[in-house]
């Protein structure tokens, strides 16, 4: 008897769902391979190679959802799991008040492949380990640096999505990233400085282009300069934020509140709700006229550009904020009709075969403006230039936020001067974005992103890319992130 193919398993599950009387069902079969190499203090602390295969079946029965998944891929297990998903859906339907109705989507037949120049899984392990060891050596060659870390990561997801509506999409997706960190010690204080590639749907060429060995001496020098820098004086400053830093600011204060499931209360018990309630759509002034935030799940190499989401909806590009006005949400087929949308935005993603897809932040980016970074800084009398990610925290409606950064420089009379430490700024989301009075031009645009965005119960890790050019914000409250200041 020939070994059954994924298509055979999919057909088996979908036939059972169709014969159960369910109005909709789908199956995702996923084979994920991942490799992480982690270095710490000039040693390779772990090399881990993960091979993860399984499938998840989702059923909508009389307006109630059921989902079951298993890592056992067999002719016995697939129908059993499909039956369980049907039974669970019937249970959900039995207590439903409002019945789920899905937005329509054309049937798709496609294959999506990440183009890579260098397959990260074919690069010799020794070459990768040597790169990390050399990077950590370079970091710790700097006097004052006492600890170092470096990491490379790659993942490949082969997936088949098939639905009772006839959609069949095969995926072969790759993502890579790398980072390194130096920790410096001085006068009983310690501080870290990092360099990282954005996680992107690219191959090992991403790591080669990053030139870790060239970056390491600068990172180490800045770690020492940072720990020895004067602490910031609390007060109001103009801030010029670099694209990497902005990726987190956009993610937390724009991305999450634009998830429609949050606005509708689905995440009220964990990740929270949203101040961007549905009555604000199309009218609410989220930011200044300089602020246009576009969701683009079609941009090549970005994490959320997977061709189709886990609803089988084609990836799209749309506005979240246009010249300061809140205009759009991230949606899936379930929640889109609740705001009168005829079609989902295609932002429903699961982090594995074992997770049910949920609304996820799209690749939301800040549209470029007209200035250069130098022009943004030149027009600042007393300000701070911030690079990278640091401490971050935001309330459950995404109003009150507090962000640090990885590196800070004082701006005085239009000039970037020396480094500062312990810079923390805080504000209220729409007030902050309304203080944006300049964005740098497209030549400064860079992409960063996340593979660890936590949401859902059970928790899932979302992937998305956020691109931006540098931007300036006026009169932002800064506090000192230490002691009792």
């Amino acid at each position, binding site marked *: 008897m020939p070994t059954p193919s994924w298509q055979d398993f999919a057909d088996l599950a979908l036939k059972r769902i169709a014969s159960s009387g369910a109005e909709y069902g789908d199956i995702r079969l996923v084979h994920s391979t991942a490799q992480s190499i982690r270095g710490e203090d000039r*040693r390779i*602390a*772990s*090399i*881990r*190679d993960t*091979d*993860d*295969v*399984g499938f998840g079946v989702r059923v909508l029965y009389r307006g109630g*959802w059921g*989902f*079951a*998944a*298993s*890592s*056992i891929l067999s002719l016995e297990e697939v129908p059993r*799991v499909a039956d*369980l998903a049907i*039974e*669970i859906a019937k*249970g959900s339907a039995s*207590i*439903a*008040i*409002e019945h789920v109705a899905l937005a329509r989507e054309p049937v798709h037949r496609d294959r999506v492949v990440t183009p890579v120049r260098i397959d990260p899984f074919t690069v010799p*392990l*020794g070459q990768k*380990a*040597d790169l990390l*060891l050399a990077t950590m050596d370079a970091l710790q060659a700097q006097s004052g640096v006492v*600890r170092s870390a470096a990491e490379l990561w790659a993942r490949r997801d082969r997936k088949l999505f098939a639905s009772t509506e006839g959609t069949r999409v095969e995926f072969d997706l790759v993502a890579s990233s790398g980072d390194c960190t130096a920790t410096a010690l001085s006068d009983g*204080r*310690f501080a870290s400085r990092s360099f990282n590639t954005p996680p992107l749907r690219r191959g090992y060429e991403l790591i080669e282009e990053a030139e870790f060995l060239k970056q390491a001496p600068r990172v180490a020098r800045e770690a020492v300069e940072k720990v020895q820098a004067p602490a910031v004086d609390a007060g109001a400053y103009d801030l010029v934020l670099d694209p990497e830093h902005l990726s987190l600011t956009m993610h937390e204060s724009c991305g999450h509140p634009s998830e429609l499931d949050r606005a*509708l209360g*689905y995440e*009220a*018990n*964990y990740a929270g709700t949203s*101040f961007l309630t549905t009555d604000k759509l199309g009218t609410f002034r989220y930011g200044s006229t300089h602020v246009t935030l576009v969701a683009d799940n079609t941009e090549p190499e970005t994490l959320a550009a997977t061709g189709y989401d886990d609803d089988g909806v084609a990836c799209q590009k749309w506005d979240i904020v246009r010249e300061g006005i809140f205009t759009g949400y991230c949606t899936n087929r379930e929640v889109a009709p609740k705001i009168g949308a005829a079609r989902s935005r295609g932002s429903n993603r699961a982090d594995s075969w074992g*997770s*049910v897809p*949920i609304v996820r932040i799209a690749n939301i980016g800040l549209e470029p403006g007209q200035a250069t970074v130098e022009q943004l800084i030149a027009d600042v009398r007393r300000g701070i230039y911030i690079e990278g990610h640091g*401490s971050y*925290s935001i*309330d*459950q*409606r995404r109003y*009150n936020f*507090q962000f640090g950064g990885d590196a800070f420089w004082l701006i005085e009379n239009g000039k970037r001067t020396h480094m500062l430490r*312990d810079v*923390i700024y*805080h504000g*209220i989301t729409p007030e902050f974005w309304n203080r944006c009075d300049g964005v740098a031009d497209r030549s400064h645009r860079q992409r960063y992103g996340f593979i660890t965005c936590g949401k859902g*119960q*059970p928790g899932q890790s979302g992937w998305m890319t956020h691109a931006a050019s540098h931007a300036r914000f006026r009169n932002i409250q800064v*506090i000192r*992130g*230490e*002691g009792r200041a």
Partner: protein
Amino acid sequence: MTPTGAKPWPKMTSREEFQFIAELVMACSTADHTQVTLHDQDGGTARFANNQMIQNVNMRRGAVAVTAAFGARQGTASTTDFTAGALRETVKRAEAIARLSPEDPEYLPPAGPQVYNPGPTAREETLAAGPAVRLEYANEAIGQCRMENLSAAGVVSSSRASVGVAAGTGLLAFEERTEARFSITVQAGDATGWASSAHRSIDRLKVQERTLSAIHKATLGVEPQELPPGRYRVILEPAAVAGLWSWIIWTLDAKSYLKNTSPFAGKLNELILDAGLSLENCPGHADLLGVGFTAEGLPSAASRWIHRGVLRQLAYDRFTAQAQQVATIPTIEAPRLSLEGAAASSLAQLVKSAGRAILVTNFWYLRTVNPADLTLTGMTRDGTFLVENGEIVSAVKNFRFHESPLRAFQRIEAWTAPMEAVTSETGKMLVPAVVLPEFHFSSVTRF
């Protein structure tokens, strides 16, 4: 309970089956040392919002990881396929990685045979619970909120797992674990109330009691007044205490301590907190989620970490423990925080004795601001109140805090006995509710 009619799940991996897997792995391994770990889990979650189910899921996932070492070169490979061919392939992958790896100066062979104290890690009622039981508990919570015309969001989850660690050194650890969780957020207009629980037994989640507590909080939370940021006396409920103490526990690692990149650097055996405070590990406690052994197969044991305010213990990896001649590595997966002296009989009693204070139900999105002194930030959430003359006089808008628990817990004015505490960002702990004389709220939000 109403059975769903679904067929029973395949049997979870038994001790004998794990031993068979381990023997198969060892037999085909050519490495100097080989370790195999098992995590085979079956469980699910009933998730509701706006008083109805939004997700209802079940997942079975089994994984075996093999770590192979040649001298001090090691590699790990894992698989979700338990067939003999896949396991042999996984051993080959681990060996291939190990052969290509640089030598790890901190490598140690797997531990040898250990003696374990079997604990109450699995409960029959949770082993037997499936989607129908979870749905029934969820429906119970929803029903209570509907009766009050309030909106509920929350989860009921349960899982069972077979966990094992074995090595060619004779190490063999195996146990079954069960876990159940419940949490609920009740919305009354713009106000929210929250409660949660976790237990090895799904029948000990106290769904009705917790739901009533969340309803009470939500009802009290309407029309919050805005107070200015500043330093306030606070009454922290157990979940809020657990949120702060999780960060203390996470930063107790010995390697950072020895490299002076720890907030505790130089403070071992010194008074670091209120002299009445003690933190201990209680793996056998029936109301905690203790386990019999660590991921490396080392036995969990009762241990004392902070005693009467004095830091007595650090968290060691095996290499650092050997270098520091620490014979038995302590674990802290079942923390219990307590205070010596007369405790208030209940949270209500604590409120009565507090004078003017801010009562905090829970904190949210806690993050490090300054790792050197463990200054943290975060928001109050789902029930923040002003207490005056021993009574809750109003809800207040949520605050952001900017504070180090190492400062805040220098002096504790009043406390209760340890109570169960679970948050969305931490595991389960037993901690008291406390009154702290001063806590720094740095800003306020819009609700």
